[in-house]
């Protein structure tokens, strides 16, 4: 089971954090700081996996963003890399060639997409088509409400 996922920039700024195991905020901050420092210090050709306490860390850099997951001893490292990749593909498809700014300005969308891919730290849906369909359905609901709101505001509801 995945314990948490962190997205951070090359400058060490945290962009997204998703915790599947409860920790006090103080601990979360410490873990985040430790991992960002450790990973930023590593060189490009190095292994994408490292041992960290009793967890395994799997990370990969996409352009200016690092994606970092903590998994348990029995979890599969290579497939965790591909969970990251699938998430990047989903973001890319949704935003249309995603960049760090998209995730900063639409962090809530980044969360909603992640929640369709993983639930409780386990892979929920690996089909790209199905995840995008679910996110599109959410957006549709919102848009309908927005129109509804527009009509109501103008006395047409």
């Amino acid at each position, binding site marked *: 089971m995945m314990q948490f996922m962190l997205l951070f920039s090359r400058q060490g700024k945290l962009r997204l954090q998703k915790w599947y195991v409860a920790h*006090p905020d103080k601990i979360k901050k410490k873990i985040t700081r430790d991992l960002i420092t450790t990973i930023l210090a590593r060189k490009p050709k190095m292994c994408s*996996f490292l041992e960290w306490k009793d967890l395994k860390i799997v990370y990969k850099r996409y352009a200016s963003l690092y994606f970092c997951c903590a998994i348990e001893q029995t979890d*599969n490292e290579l497939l965790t890399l591909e969970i990251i990749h699938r998430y990047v593909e989903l973001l890319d498809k949704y935003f249309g060639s995603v960049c760090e700014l998209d995730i900063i300005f639409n*962090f809530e969308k980044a969360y909603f997409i992640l929640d369709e891919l993983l639930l409780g730290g386990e892979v929920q849906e690996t089909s790209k088509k199905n995840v995008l369909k*679910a996110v599109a359905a959410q*957006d549709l609901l919102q848009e309908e409400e927005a129109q509804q709101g527009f009509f109501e505001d103008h006395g047409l509801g």
Partner: protein
Amino acid sequence: MPAVRGDGMRGLAVFISDIRNCKSKEAEIKRINKELANIRSKFKGDRTLDGYQKKKYVCKLLFIFLLGHDIDFGHMEAVNLLSSNKYSEKQIGYLFISVLVNTNSDLIKLIIQSIKNDLSSRNPIHVNLAMQCIANIGSKDMAEAFGYDIPKLLVSGDTMDVVKQSAALCLLRLFATYPEIIPGGEWTSRIIHLLNDQHLGVVTAAASLIEALVKHNPEEYKGCISLAVSRLSRTVTSSYTDLQDYTYYFVPAPWLSVKLLRLLQNYPPPEDPGVRGRLNECLETILNKAQEPPKSKKVQHSNAKNAVLFEAISLIIHNDSEPNLLVRACNQLGQFLSNRETNLRYLALESMCLLANSEFSHEAVKKHQEVVILSMKMEKDVSVRQRAVDLLYAMCDKTNSEEIVQEMLNYLETADYSIREEMVLKVAILAEKYATDYSWYVDVILNLIRIAGDYVSEEVWYRVIQIVINRDDVQGYAAKTVFEALQAPACHENMVKVGGYILGEFGNLIAGDQRSAPSVQFQLLHSKYHLCSSMTRALLLSTYVKFVNLFPEIKGIIQNVFNQDSNIRSADAELQQRASEYLQLSNIVTTDVLATVLEEMPAFPERESSILALLKRKKPGRVPDTLEGKEEKIAAPSPINSSQHVNNTAATDLLGLSTPPTSVNTSSNSNDLVDVLDAPSIAISFTYNNLLQKLFVKLPLTINKFFEPTEMNGESFFARWKNLGRSSQPMDAASTRTKLLGFGMQLLDGIDPNPDNYVCAGIIHTRTQQIGCLLRLEPNKQAQMYRLTVRSSKESVSVEVCELLVDQF
């Protein structure tokens, strides 16, 4: 500003832009505080705040939280949003709760009803939102509230597939905190049959749930074995077009395959020959596919394919029953050892470690020894080198131990600091385990101390001494070798310890040679004495007294050393005591008594190597339990024979330094001590020549022997300092830090505003009371004087402590 789909929140985007435009950290904090104040006042005052505005402000709070600031309000607004009729508001409410709220928050109770409503909605999007939230919080409250609904959603015939997927994982999460949530009986069969579901997404999610259930109760769910094998078989043999969107870069359903392979690792190999045959076919298919040319050059293709392959190899190793598959797995991993991808080399080294422990594949792993040694030396990434060291350790046996140990020793000279300590332990263990010739073992350990002395822990040098003492065939060689090693102009303190101990026991075996005559041995050791810590000096003093017994001709020189001020009047109580006791011993007793007291150490009981136990403690799970795994405490050798009657297993430090020499008497006398403050005396009566003799001996129990060092900060030190203001007695002394430390109180650094001053604290424990004691020593450099002030809760104790210190200086 990037375009936003759904319904954008302009105010949020503007705020984020503002923050990004801030030129400095201060400006950012200022902007955030302004926004927080604004939101707070909106939430407090403005009753007409509509859903959209609430949503916008809650989003801003979330953003501020993500920047790393603490958020302590807005929860109620989020709860309101969560129960809104509008999906866009509801979604943000849920997001805030799942990002910001911890499991034990009181807010959870407030949202349970809203979640219940959403869970029974006809719209699957609402249902899933509720389940994401339940899974994210995953508390016992949640389990109790939804323990009925979620299992029902999972197996009910009219639940949509997307909801089933979420329900399976949501249930898994709740099961982890509250195992009672899973109903037994007919549910078992319904749950495991989800492995047959049409929808691959449902099967994938269910496989995770089933694995957790199996771990909890393997017997109950063992029906899943055959279902998992047939599902796996269908998956791995399907072409990549069969599974449509569940094919990932030409690999059919890698996530499902890995989960099924993992699920099967919770059971022994299937008993049913049919199922077993089918499983072996699957595993062969996976191994065959690994040899096929890749269908794509993309790393995603090879990662997904190899993820399945590594999981299959894990299962083969777990089953440990098919020699053919084990050897094939080993050959496959061998190919990966020289792969271009660092990740693959890392994983191959890791997997091979497990293969090395199987009797079927141990020999096959050994074929790769050269490549692994190269990995240890050449890999750029220390974590990969670490893996290579692990594998060398695992593949080592009688046939290759000398070579592997030698290579590890060579590498140790340049190895990364982060892995040296572990490597030292591993080399020490291998040398001991596979030594047929113990002189080789002694050479290896002395080399370890020479190359990486700082990383040689006490256990390692205790162990070499234990082994030398237990094996008389190696004692002469050990004495000769340490003698030679000590000739080096700079040698590590650990070398002095081992050398001192071994020469003290077996120096006589090499004393016949003029080059290592008794006086030469003594001079050699004593030339290091002044460079060593007091613990090592204490050990050397014991060596010297043993020399008195072994070599009566140098008794005079040694007595002079005991008699030196730096020993017999040492500030270190242990050194002082040893010097005076050994001096007395050498002066008073007859040679017979001396020979008995200072006799050679008896053999240590044989037990599991203490270093192996240490490595296991450091790397739980990484050290195979192949040796007899008895839990044990390290039996520490103690150089003086009197302590052989003391329980050997309880003493963990070689010198017995951890036990204060006076502790035996504390219970009987410390009570009186407070009032009398005289050192207690012992009355010995006996009859000699029919005459009753009585002796009163004063015991060297001064009050400071009862100190317990006490940590405290500046505030509490001076608060107590003032409280204990009744007595202050200035005195002058030429003092040092060591003297204060040796006195037994805690020396507190960084407490006194004047860094030149020393302050100490301690508690004296007696049977009836505890006496707090504080001390302050203020040096005056111009006057070449010190001022010492002692305060304690008992006037007489302050005086006594002061007087004791006067004697000290």
